[in-house]
């Protein structure tokens, strides 16, 4: 046996892995261009794809900027900020659903279902449409099929929210090789040419989520010491605050409650966001709404704005303090603070961070892009192109099981480096008991009812035995994506015991599978469709060039047999063009190219190359 390892795979081109930032407000896709991460713009040239999906009356799915336009006139069929609904139960989001223009079906299911027109969609399906758009943008820009990716999630996302994100990837036809925490990804983008060693804090305030992470950097290892956050805190809350005030004003000025009018509210939302963004640069702005011939105007000074949102900004500080404590560092030991997320453009946010950390925060990289850039770096690490860097992330929430009396026994504590595992033995309570139900929760509270229910795991097919005799060893493992895997083994027989998972919030495997079958076919169709279109365009260009070449002297100089051969190849290409198979068209193009070499040579020699210039002949 040879001790040399021969890797036959290197001869083949490795498929590219892209990095995706699936944001509350905007989504981006990036790739590694040799050593520099780059964001890939969409066909409209915009790097940010608004995370908006609209199901038109014609039954078409529209994503991004075109969907944003439909937000006004077709608001009840258009979804935005769907990230806030990922991995959540209907009770969690009842309050904020009031602010959304779209409706939700009433059912007792564990998943929220959005009603757009006559069809219902789960949040992972809506996210999958956004992912599919990003996949398409990347494929068009890079000219290759993309099937693997890294997706970023808020560090404070729980298991269900992570699983929902992974499901979205699967539904979109993407293998999600890794879920990376957004602040950690951002630090990768920042750390590229920066300090080799030190402690950094990443403050990430996005459209709908807030994260704070503290990392230790040393020789290419990015080790997260602690993380904290709030998955329901972000720019959306600032917008909603301003909208609420404007709605009250309008009610008293116009004598009309427009809060249930989707179109008016969306127009107002747009006006408010514009005002908010301007307030980062100006000291006063005017919010203006014209609707049904009536106009509402209100000037807002930056001072008033800051007073209105101060409590929202302050809500980020508690998690920051806890995080510093958990990381076991002092404020003085933190060398740098990095700002991520569009909401960190708000001057009050920067001020608050500067005061807390006693250091001027870094804002050099575009806060909208830095997470996607970091995702591309992580993709490059996974592809094996960047072996010197390594991310060691942590789980944001403690994992425990519900014991007798509803008390939680913690198995894996928060801020444990992942993957992390713990083994626990279970037994039966009744003679002949065949199964044991384990309730797994996530959170820091003492009682299971105060924690987040994650799933119920049913250990099945236990050998019937007297009570307390069975010994089932259960292994809880949180993987590098922050997702729990549970396996069980019967200690007596040494055999794996089957575990049935009932997620508390989210889709079962079968449901995801059904969605994939329903939608992936379409996505693959799309890809083939595009390849076919491109192959036909190329065929037409070559055929046109050939028609010209046939007028030339070089053509006449060919042997009779050579001309016949070329004519045959041309006819075959014309035939192939009418078929739906792009592979066949490409093969015929290749064949025509091969038999026209001499012709091209002749033409070059007779200096009449103009006709063929720029074609592949």
């Amino acid at each position, binding site marked *: 046996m040879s*001790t040399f390892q021969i890797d036959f795979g290197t001869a083949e081109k490795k498929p590219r892995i892209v990095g995706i930032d699936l944001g509350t407000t905007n989504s981006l896709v990036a790739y590694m261009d040799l050593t520099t991460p780059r964001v890939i713009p969409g066909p409209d040239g915009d790097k940010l794809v608004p995370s908006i999906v609209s199901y038109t009356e014609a039954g078409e799915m529209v994503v991004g900027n075109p969907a944003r336009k439909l937000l006004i006139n077709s608001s009840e069929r258009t979804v935005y900020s769907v990230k806030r609904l990922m991995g959540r139960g209907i009770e969690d989001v009842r309050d904020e659903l009031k602010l959304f223009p779209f409706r939700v079906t009433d059912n007792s299911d564990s998943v929220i279902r959005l009603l757009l027109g006559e069809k219902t969609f789960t949040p992972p399906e809506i996210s999958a449409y956004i992912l599919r758009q990003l996949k398409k943008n990347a494929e068009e820009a890079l000219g290759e099929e993309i099937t693997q990716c890294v997706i970023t999630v808020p560090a404070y996302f729980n298991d269900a929210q992570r699983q929902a994100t992974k499901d979205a990837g699967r539904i979109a036809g993407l293998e999600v090789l890794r879920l990376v925490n957004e602040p950690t990804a951002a630090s990768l983008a920042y750390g590229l040419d920066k300090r080799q060693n030190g402690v950094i804090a990443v403050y990430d305030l996005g459209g709908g989520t807030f994260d704070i992470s503290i990392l230790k950097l040393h020789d290419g290892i990015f080790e997260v010491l602690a993380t904290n956050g709030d998955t329901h805190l972000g720019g959306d809350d600032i917008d909603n605050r301003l909208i609420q005030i404007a709605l009250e004003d309008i009610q008293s000025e116009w004598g009309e409650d427009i809060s249930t009018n989707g179109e008016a509210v969306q127009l107002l939302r747009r006006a408010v966001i514009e005002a908010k963004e301007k307030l980062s640069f100006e000291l006063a702005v005017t919010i203006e709404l014209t609707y049904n011939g009536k106009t509402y105007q209100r000037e807002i000074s930056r001072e008033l704005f800051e007073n209105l949102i101060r409590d929202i900004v302050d809500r980020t500080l508690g998690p920051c303090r806890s995080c510093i404590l958990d990381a076991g560092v002092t404020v003085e030991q933190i060398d740098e603070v990095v700002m991520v997320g569009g909401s960190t453009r708000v001057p009050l946010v920067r001020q608050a961070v500067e005061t807390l950390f006693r250091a001027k925060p870094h804002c050099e990289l575009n806060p909208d892009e830095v997470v996607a850039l970091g995702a591309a770096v992580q993709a490059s690490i*996974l592809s094996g192109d960047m072996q010197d860097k390594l991310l060691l992330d942590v789980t944001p929430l403690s994992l425990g099981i519900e014991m007798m009396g509803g008390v939680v026994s913690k198995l894996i504590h928060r801020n444990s*480096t992942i*993957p992390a595992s713990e083994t626990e033995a279970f037994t039966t309570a009744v003679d002949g008991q065949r199964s044991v139900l384990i309730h797994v929760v996530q959170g820091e509270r003492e009682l299971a009812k105060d924690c987040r229910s994650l799933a119920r795991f049913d250990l099945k097919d236990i050998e019937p035995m007297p009570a307390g005799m069975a010994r089932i060893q259960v292994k809880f493992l949180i993987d590098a994506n922050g997702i729990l895997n549970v396996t069980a083994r019967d200690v007596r027989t040494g055999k794996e015991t089957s575990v049935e998972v009932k997620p508390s919030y989210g889709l079962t495997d079968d449901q995801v599978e059904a969605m994939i079958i329903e939608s992936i076919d379409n996505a693959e169709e799309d890809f083939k469709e595009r390849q076919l279109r491109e192959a036909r365009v190329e065929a037409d260009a070559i055929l046109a060039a050939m028609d010209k070449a046939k007028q030339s002297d070089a053509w006449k100089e060919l042997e009779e047999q050579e001309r016949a051969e070329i004519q045959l190849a041309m006819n075959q290409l014309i035939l192939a063009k009418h078929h739906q198979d792009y592979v066949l068209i490409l093969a015929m193009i290749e064949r025509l190219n091969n038999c026209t070499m001499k012709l091209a040579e002749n033409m070059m020699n007779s200096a009449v190359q103009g006709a063929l210039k720029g074609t592949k002949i």
Partner: protein
Amino acid sequence: MNCWHCENPVEELFCGFCHSLQAPPSDFFAIFGIPKALGLDVNDLQARFYKLSRVLHPDHYSRKSDTERECSNQATAKLNDAWRTLRDPVARAEYVLSLEGLEVAEQKSKDVPPELLEEVFEMNMALEELRMGDASARPALVDAKKKFIGLREQIDLGLANLFTRYDLTQDRAILSEIRNTLNRRNYIRNLVQEVEKELV
């Protein structure tokens, strides 16, 4: 043990013949490649942790076979669990005790260590007063907290001493002594936590 891939005998984490990553050992010391000991150099352990992370982490196996990916997942989890446990002297001692079949009592037993009887009684009185809204009990509690923290530090010094003695002699009697000390330490730790909760 034989390699899952080439079936040659294997003793290390990586097969000496085909270099495939193997399922990790169950022992925390073994994954670090160090002998079982109560006293160890945490800096050395940290250096080993980073070095092993670089070769075991799932990031480097995303394009390998399912078996190797799973081995990486399990081995890294084991490494992380081991690092979390062994870097902390108390957790490390509890782990060694469990390996030797000497479990440390989970939550505090109701029995107060006799030499602490008086202090604990006084502290409980002060806690009760504070809970009833009597802020004048606060200074006494601050004092009590300081005292218990001092006591805990004293215990830690004693533990370090016991660790060295056990590593030299492998005498099980010392292990039982360590277990009793750890139980006492847990009791004091809980007291400190209780006081801290009330003082916030």
